[in-house]
């Protein structure tokens, strides 16, 4: 959208950022993104964000891990087929330990994979609207407007207590 302009409202207080987001809803401007230095519960609540679904990746990883660990232990035991003290070659109790360790390992791998996929990471920051103060102590509300309307959008941010405002040219 080359005809659009990004404006970032920087807020030290999360409440002010929430107020700005509320104001954006009833305005001709569009909320593009929110950056924060810490998890922002109030903003999440305002935007009615549901819980992340990343847990399904973790769950799948865990289930695959348990089956893999158990089957691996059974497979290797049957390669030897050594009967010790008349006990069965496939011992479910000791193999549960291997299954458990693989559950955790694959669960964590699924967890990471889910995070990278759902957060779209690794990513490049270049060319995207971002203010470096957002990793410090500012909440950055990024909104888009038509060219020439930056001042009106800036005024909306100022009205909601913005500590600073940054206009970024759309490089797309």
């Amino acid at each position, binding site marked *: 959208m080359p005809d659009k302009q990004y404006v970032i409202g920087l807020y030290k207080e999360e409440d002010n950022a929430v107020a700005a987001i509320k104001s954006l809803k009833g305005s001709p401007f569009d909320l593009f*993104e*929110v*950056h*924060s*230095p*810490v*998890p*922002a519960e109030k*903003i*999440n609540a305002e*935007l009615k*964000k549901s*819980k*992340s679904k*990343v*847990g399904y990746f*973790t769950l799948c990883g865990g289930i695959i891990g348990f089956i893999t*660990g158990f089957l*691996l232990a059974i*497979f*290797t*035991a049957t*390669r*030897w087929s*050594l009967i*010790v003290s008349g006990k069965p070659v496939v*011992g479910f109790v*000791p*193999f549960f*330990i*291997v299954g*458990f*360790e*693989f559950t*955790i*390992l694959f*669960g*964590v*791998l699924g*967890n*990471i994979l*889910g*995070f*990278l996929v*759902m*957060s*779209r*990471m*690794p*990513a*490049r*920051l270049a060319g*995207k609207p*971002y203010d*470096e*103060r*957002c*990793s*410090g*102590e500012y909440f950055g509300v990024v909104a888009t407007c038509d060219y020439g309307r930056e001042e009106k959008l800036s005024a909306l941010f100022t009205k909601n207590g913005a500590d600073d405002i940054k206009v970024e040219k759309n490089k797309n």
Partner: protein
Amino acid sequence: MAELTAAQIDNTVLDTLAAPSKTYWGIVGLLGVGVMIGLMCWGYQIVVGIGVGGQNNPVAWGTYLINFVFWVGIAHSGTLISAILYLFRAGWRNPIARAAETMTVFAVCTAGLFPLIHVGRVWVVYYMLPYPNQRTLWPNFQSPLVFDVVAISTYLTVSAMFWYTGMLPDLAIIRDRATGNRKKIFSILCLGWSGRLEQWRHYTRIYLFFAALATPLVISVHSVVSWDFALGVIPGWHSTVFAPYFVAGAIHSGLAMVVTLMIPLRKLFKYEKIITMGVLENVAKTIVFTGLIVGYAYGVEYFLAWYSGNSVEQESFMWRAVGEYKIEFWIMVICNSIVPLLFFIKKIRTSIPWLLIICIMVNIGMWYERFVIIAGSVAHDFIPHAWGYYAPTLTEFGIMLGAFCLFFFLFILFVKHMPSISMTEMKEHLHAGGNDAG
């Protein structure tokens, strides 16, 4: 309690990343020399043979396995602090979580070297992995030693990923304040983290899952390590108390190492406002708790030996207290379960010199605990004519020195080049209404 702001937290931590002094590089160089000594000793052992170590009948598991268990134990408190205390929402963990996680990763790496050293022919170490060898034989998962390979590998992978994921927002902070090549490096390291709402939404969820998965893992890993011994029929090893005993001991030693590392770090990096005395005091209180569990386990072992009516078991435990290794035994008892009781006195647990001295004593005591259990049990088992005495050789001491130097070498490099305190977690705590470290 000193009030902190987000900017103060960032500035304090980022100041530690300034160009290191000559003294710093001097210490790094010294530790590097220690690592080289260890490598040379290992090289000597590879060329000449495993016989250059003191391990022989009846003590086939000497300092290599003692150090392995010691370092795995050290690794455990990192996960306790970062995962278990996270689930309990203990705010005082925040200032020390990063350093404890770092300690965990480097301690597991150090521990992981010892099985390689111990097997002698290190080039066939892949026999331990679930992969068929030249004779198409697979490792058989009926031995706790094979469980251990899986458990330790899992622990290293999980703790390294937990550690790195937790660092992403902090790496982005450094990227945003860096210039030149440093900015490029940190841009790659932080994987493009920008603190977008979506990133945080998934990040907080996976962090919770990490903690939830790491908590049973930390308990299982040292339990599996304990079964390396407990599943053998050796008197002094064959005990059902071993798993909880080892887990408690691991956390005990790990917490002591955390304090041992935190006190100089706090002083050198001027972290007094972040790592407050309250934080150190809470670690000291936890050490009292783990020390009591360890002391109880020592008592239970003696009770079981007496109550079993097994004369071999009784002789073994009597020998521990009055035999050739009595000095090691009493160092273990005094340092691990009696000295930490001094932390009941507020004046002592809030005194930096006392904290440091007692924690170093606990570390020494925990090393000797592993010595007494591992070497002491097989040195004096069933048959009197097979009893023996084990003492480490110079080569083993060299390798041990190398391992300790390697751990501190890696740690000292990390704290000067990466954020040694989680700025994000500290700011999150402030944002949630806390005005200090917790």
